[in-house]
């Protein structure tokens, strides 16, 4: 299956700070890909690069087979629901639909109106008068009606209450099922993504920690607990994601393709949330030690 987003050593630098570093990714077509990481990890930067709002400082990025935002045809292939779902406060819902119709060659007006109708939005209401949830739905409608190959959503539910959050994700999933669009969405909450994603990228401290299909990630990550043991004592094909030690006991989260054979360990499978948490609170590796030392210490305490 071909990749809908492919990045090669992409980095983005703002003045003196790297917001994203050495990011190499391959997101297959037809997936709902979750991008998760703490605030400030570089999620918005990666999404901005994907839709072409930003251009990379180093590296290359290819989306739907082309350079992002380079032409009108390329822009038509990618839909984007930006953070805080911006809309024109002074324009009505109908105006937004007309804007979409005027500015997008692949615009599906009937579908957009049907969706607005189903949501119960009044076409004559100004976007500034809509609730946060309704505005998010309007922005999603605009993104979907473009009929894109890839829909990118930046923290679409972060500012919504739990009910609106649920509704939003439901509408999104229905659309994905109907139109077969690939989706890339970010959140700092794993629980938002758990129900909708089949592909996951974990971003911490401006670096990609892990990426892959959810099923595969769950199959290859294990929690091992048993008597105290040094990290060096583990087989070489088990890479340690996270570790914790008491006086007598060690707990590891490891990634491995082979089965765990050591009878000393009691092996428990990981949920998606635990898996992500293991990466977010990972013991710093020597290369990123300086960057994440503070975070690591805080968690171990």
């Amino acid at each position, binding site marked *: 299956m071909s990749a809908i987003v492919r990045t090669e050593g992409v980095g983005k630098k703002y003045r003196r700070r790297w917001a994203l570093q050495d990011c190499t990714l391959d997101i297959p077509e037809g997936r709902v890909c979750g991008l998760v990481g703490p605030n400030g990890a570089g999620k918005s930067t990666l999404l901005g690069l994907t839709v072409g709002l930003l251009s990379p400082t180093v590296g290359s990025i290819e989306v739907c087979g082309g350079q992002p935002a380079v032409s009108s045809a390329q822009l038509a292939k990618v839909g984007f629901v930006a953070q805080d779902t911006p809309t024109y406060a002074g324009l009505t819902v109908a105006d937004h639909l*007309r*804007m979409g119709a005027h500015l997008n060659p692949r615009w599906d007006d009937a579908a957009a109106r049907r969706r607005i109708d189903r949501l119960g939005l009044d076409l004559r209401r100004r976007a500034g008068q809509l609730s946060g949830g309704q505005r998010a739905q309007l922005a999603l409608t605009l993104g979907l009606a473009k009929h894109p190959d890839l829909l990118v959503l930046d923290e679409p539910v972060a500012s919504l209450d739990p009910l609106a959050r649920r509704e939003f994700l439901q509408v999104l999933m229905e659309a994905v099922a109907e139109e077969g669009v690939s989706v890339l969405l970010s959140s700092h909450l794993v629980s938002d993504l758990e129900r909708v994603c089949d592909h996951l990228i974990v971003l911490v401290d401006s670096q990609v920690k892990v990426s892959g299909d959810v099923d595969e990630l769950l199959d290859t990550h294990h929690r091992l607990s048993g008597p105290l043991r040094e990290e060096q004592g583990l087989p070489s094909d088990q890479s340690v994601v996270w570790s914790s030690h008491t006086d007598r006991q060690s707990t590891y989260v490891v990634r491995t393709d082979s089965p765990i054979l050591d009878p000393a360990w009691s092996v428990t499978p990981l949920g998606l949330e635990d898996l992500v948490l293991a990466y977010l609170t990972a013991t710093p590796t020597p290369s990123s030690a300086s960057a994440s030392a503070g975070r690591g210490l805080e968690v171990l305490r």
Partner: protein
Amino acid sequence: MIWMSWRQARTQIVAVLALVGAACIWLAATGPALARLAHRNTYVYDLLSRNDRLLFNGGIAVLALAPAVLGIFWGGPLVARELETGTYRLAWNQSVTRRRWLAVKLGFAVAATVVAVGILTLAITWWAHPIDGALGSRHGGLPSRLSPIPFAMRGIVPIAYAVFALVLATLVGLVLRRSLPAMAVTLALYAFVQIAVPLWVRPHLVPSTSTTTVISAGTIDGLSMDDAGTITLSTRVAPGNWVLTDQTVDAHGRPAALPTWFNSCLPPPPGPGQARSQAGAVTSRGTLDRCLTRLDRAGYRQHVVYQPASHFWPLQWVETSLYLAGSALLCFLSFWWIRHRLA
């Protein structure tokens, strides 16, 4: 994108055009009568009604403000507002490239501004034409259209000013990413340019004319003394000319101060409480004439550099081109900035 630009700007466009229309109706109602008045009388200034003078000065004020106000209030938020409210992230993900988005948005604003300011300035130029530089029989008069202030409010230059202000405000808005600071900064920059151009640039846009005249009672319009006691003569020039320099030169044609003996030619300054007699004034007038003749014999001449009234339209065209060239450069910078710096 054209629909979108219209949708976003239609309120302003309708309001501005309504105001311009109202102004045109007022001007059209009073203009023909004014033209007849000026046609029949030499000293029109004496005959102008309060309303006419109000309109004349009002026209100058409106044309002084309109380009700046339109340009700044329209251009400042044009892009900056999208940047500060975050809607650019929505706009730049429609199937329209950023450059095209800016081109249509800016082009639309420029076109509307040109139409509004164009109608306004041509209407006011037409209205004021009969009385520009109107003289009174004894004293007073209206400034000619070539003098620095009315020049900027006549003909076609206001259109160029408006375009320049608009594009400048757009670029500053792009760079600062905030509407209000962009408008304030644009106002400062625009005001500076508007002061600098008449002072240092406009006099040289079209080659000026210079004449050297003999000094006599007939050619000298007046003389003045500054605080240091230096006396300068001013030459009588035809109304409508814009005098750039007016100085006394010696027999070798070099700028020179008046000889010291000339000071005694002036009547003594009237002391407090001392009545000036008619006879005294006549005597000093005679003395002054003799002194002027003596200056002339000593080889002194008046050297005047000026833009003649006939240079009005050449100056208008050159200054318009200059501002439009500046606007084109600012446009180019805006496109460069939106492509390379906002990414």
